[in-house]
């Protein structure tokens, strides 16, 4: 027998080769663009929502404009023509809005919102390399065009600007603009030539380029690095405002300085401007020539006006810099770091190991029973605290606000309302609430479904609402909040409430309950989540997509969460989703069952009971009840639910965990013994094995052994499972997860 020692790193090699191929590189740049688009679309939706809510000011409109403009600019660099064309039209309309030439009435806002949706669709289409859906795009394009009228408004505008110049010819002004583009400037697809051309439109210009930064030799030359600084003096505009507008989109991509140079004597102005009507734009090869211009200008420099200009420049620069500094925080409120999620996950795993390692050491030291160990244990406690602190810090990296998720729901709600002919406002609250990244991703589908359901089935048509004495416009509230270690997301509608007789009828018709069953309101409500309860008889094309609420429930349970319903007839329905704060760590109680160590989440345990004979009652041979504070609670034997042989230990020698969850009012789970409570790192069973009924995951104990984490709700409600430890060998049929 010879052990195999051989490096198995083929995967790594393949990865390297892939990285080297140019297609991957292109794709990576494109991916970065799409990532940026995501952020821009969030800003866009946010701005549009504010505008619709009547909370928009000029800055809001500007922010929306900037977002659309940036998408257009970057899309242009990738030749995404559909996207560019649409963004251009969208931007033109927004430009009219921010110039105050278009009133933001309901009709316009509606079109702008549609345009925002279409823009998001086009970005998606481009990402998937799919053609744009012209049937959807074109009507919105036409709507946008309708607001622009027939002629091109730009022409008119330029004319006005010129006439303004003529109106104030007495005070010609000179601005000295100096900008040095950074690498990012070029990467974003900007061209200094365009900026200079735009400056030339403002008045006569003088252009020079500074090439001091340029490396002497070609070695070490970085092709896209910004080595050049451009100096442009512009005669004409009275203030620096039009100049700033030109640089609006690049001011954080280049080092920009604008200095005001008052021209006292008009004569001198004439002199310079007469020679500079033609614009010299120097690029690439003609750098030397540009340099010559620069020196030439420097030689011309010691004219009176320049002498006053030079000293004036520095003090003038200061306020500009300050102004820029105060503007910045408003514009880029959230400076973020893009990190590959895999890196974060690796860090989380490592920290998880650290925590486990720490408990191993504690355990070993306690067993070692060292003399004078008090100091050692104090140090160990510090270690524990630090490890926890690191863990919290690392976990918080994954935490993301629910805001982008909620914003997607705004669109879902709008489309659902349009499709059903209902008038609904979706109000979101607590958007800043942070949850684990995975939760944000995996909640999208369940939430979409629930929002559609609420609008389709919950909220009534306007005329029905009026008859019922309600406002014609329905309100749907989507809220997120943090409550004692959990995140609670609620979907609250002010509709008609659940139609319980109908739900009951459907459930009976589908054979989910017997016609004679006496059901409480809560039990009827929960039928909605029953597998096979699809209200297919009356679904519209909106919510009837073959997904029932049971799928919603499954998705949320998979995240370690729960869903609850409460409904008041005539007043509305509330769905609340409770999710754990983090997926990777939880407080657990260590228990033993049938010789196996397991973990029960503390969050579901109400109390632990060591019963006396007087506390126990029996129904028949197998059904035991616990009497507690006058209530009779069914007892479930954890071992037999998990397929082990039923323990013959009397219940009085065992421990009962009193469990309470949304669906299970109360239940006592019998275990052999309980040990301590501790924070555990949750490991997925799914990735290498699969789902197991009654088990939500696994953790690694201090001794390095794996302990399974119990899903108390599944154990408590546990219907009949496949026979435990089946003896047949057929592939994988023993795990029937749905029942």
């Amino acid at each position, binding site marked *: 027998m010879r052990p195999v020692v051989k490096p198995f790193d083929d995967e790594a090699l393949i990865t390297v080769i892939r990285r080297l191929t140019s297609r991957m590189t292109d794709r990576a740049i494109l991916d970065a663009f799409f990532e940026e688009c995501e952020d821009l679309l969030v800003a866009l939706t946010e701005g549009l929502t504010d505008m619709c809510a009547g909370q928009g000011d000029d800055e809001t409109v500007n922010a929306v404009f900037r977002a659309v403009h940036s998408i257009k600019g970057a899309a242009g660099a990738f030749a995404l023509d559909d996207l560019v064309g649409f963004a251009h039209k969208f931007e033109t309309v927004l430009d009219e809005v921010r110039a105050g030439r278009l009133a933001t009435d309901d009709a316009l806002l509606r079109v702008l919102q549609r345009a925002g949706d279409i823009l998001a669709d086009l970005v998606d289409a481009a990402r998937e390399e799919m053609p744009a859906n012209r049937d959807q795009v074109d009507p919105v394009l036409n709507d946008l065009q309708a607001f622009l009228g027939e002629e091109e408004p730009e022409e008119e505008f330029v004319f006005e600007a010129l006439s303004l110049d003529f109106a104030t010819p007495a005070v010609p002004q000179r601005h000295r603009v100096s900008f040095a583009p950074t690498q990012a400037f070029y990467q974003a697809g900007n061209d200094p030539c365009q900026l200079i051309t735009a400056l030339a439109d403002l008045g006569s210009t003088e252009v020079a380029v500074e090439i001091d930064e340029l490396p002497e030799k070609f070695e070490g030359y970085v092709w896209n690095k910004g080595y050049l600084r451009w100096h442009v003096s512009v005669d004409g505009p009275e203030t620096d405002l039009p100049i700033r507008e030109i640089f609006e989109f690049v001011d954080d991509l280049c080092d920009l300085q604008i200095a005001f140079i008052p021209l006292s004597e008009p004569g001198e102005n004439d002199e310079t401007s007469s020679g500079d009507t033609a614009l010299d734009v120097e690029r690439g090869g003609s750098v030397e020539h540009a340099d010559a211009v620069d020196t030439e200008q420097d030689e011309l420099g010691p004219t009176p006006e320049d002498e006053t200009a030079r000293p004036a420049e520095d003090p003038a620069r200061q306020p500009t810099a300050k102004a820029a500094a105060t503007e910045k925080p408003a514009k880029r409120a959230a400076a973020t770091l893009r990190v590959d999620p895999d890196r974060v996950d690796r860090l989380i795993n490592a920290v998880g190991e650290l925590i486990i390692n720490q408990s191993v050491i504690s355990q070993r030291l306690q067993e070692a029973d060292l003399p004078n160990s008090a100091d050692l244990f104090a140090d160990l406690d510090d270690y524990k605290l630090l490890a926890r602190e690191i863990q919290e810090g690392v976990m918080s990296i994954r935490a993301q606000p629910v805001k982008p998720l909620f914003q997607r729901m705004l669109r879902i709600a709008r489309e659902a309302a349009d499709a059903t002919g209902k008038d609904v406002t979706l109000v979101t609250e607590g958007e800043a609430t942070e949850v684990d990244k995975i939760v944000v991703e995996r909640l999208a589908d369940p939430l979409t479904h629930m929002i559609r359901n609420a609008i389709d089935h919950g909220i009534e048509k306007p005329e029905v609402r009026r008859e019922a004495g309600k406002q014609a416009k329905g309100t749907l509230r989507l809220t997120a909040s943090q409550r004692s270690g959990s995140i609670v997301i609620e979907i609250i509608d002010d509709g008609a409430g659940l139609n319980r007789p109908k739900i009951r009828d459907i459930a009976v018709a589908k054979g989910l309950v017997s016609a004679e069953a006496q059901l409480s309101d809560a039990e009827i409500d929960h039928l909605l989540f029953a597998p096979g309860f699809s209200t297919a008889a009356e679904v519209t094309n909106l919510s009837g997509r073959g997904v029932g609420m049971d799928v919603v429930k499954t998705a949320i349970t998979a995240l370690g969460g729960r869903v609850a319903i409460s409904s008041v007839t005539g007043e509305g329905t509330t769905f609340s989703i409770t999710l754990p704060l983090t997926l990777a760590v939880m407080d657990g109680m260590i228990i033993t069952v049938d010789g196996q160590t397991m973990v029960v989440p503390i969050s579901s345990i109400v109390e632990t009971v060591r019963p006396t004979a007087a506390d126990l009652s029996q129904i028949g041979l197998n059904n035991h009840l616990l009497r507690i504070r006058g209530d009779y609670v069914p007892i479930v034997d954890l071992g037999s639910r998990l*397929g082990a042989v039923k323990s013959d230990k009397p219940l009085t020698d065992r421990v009962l965990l009193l469990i309470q969850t949304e669906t299970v009012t109360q239940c006592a789970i019998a275990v052999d013994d309980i040990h301590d409570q501790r924070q555990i790192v949750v490991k997925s069973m799914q990735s290498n094995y699969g789902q197991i009924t009654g088990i939500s995951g696994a953790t690694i104990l201090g001794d390095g052994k794996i302990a399974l984490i119990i899903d108390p709700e599944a154990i408590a409600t546990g219907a009949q499972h496949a026979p435990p430890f089946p003896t047949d060998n057929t592939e994988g049929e023993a795990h029937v997860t749905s029942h």
Partner: protein
Amino acid sequence: MSHPTEAQSGHQEFVTLVAGGQNFCIEITQIREIRRWTPVTILPHSPAHVLGVINLRGAVIPIIDLASKLGFPKINPTERHVIIIVAIEDRIVGLLVESVSEILGVSSDEVRETPRGQEDSTTRAIQGIIPVGDDMTKIISLATLLPNEGQVAA
């Protein structure tokens, strides 16, 4: 998986092993490491050939009794038994075997198709055979071993 990688490369290496008293082998690039048997944590409601899970540097790895999976009697694991950690698609799984023998280097034309006689749980898991001296060894198709196959997609 049904077409082993022999198509492109002339030379292939296999790790030969014994399970249920017979010779089998696994293509070497599918193997991550080889370990001694350590006790497992039992999984409820699992098929007989799934022994349980172990902690492999922080990951939860299911362990399959290869003999049992191939239709032989279950292995009664002791310290002398070996676990071969393999990558099956994107999953990591441990296979309990009786022993690991050697690395077998063969050219791809030595790999023969499995003669199709009567289908059973063993022949289904064999993707080809390699003659070795007077005997032969059977190449295991790992994809057929996935625990919980067919319903874990979710």
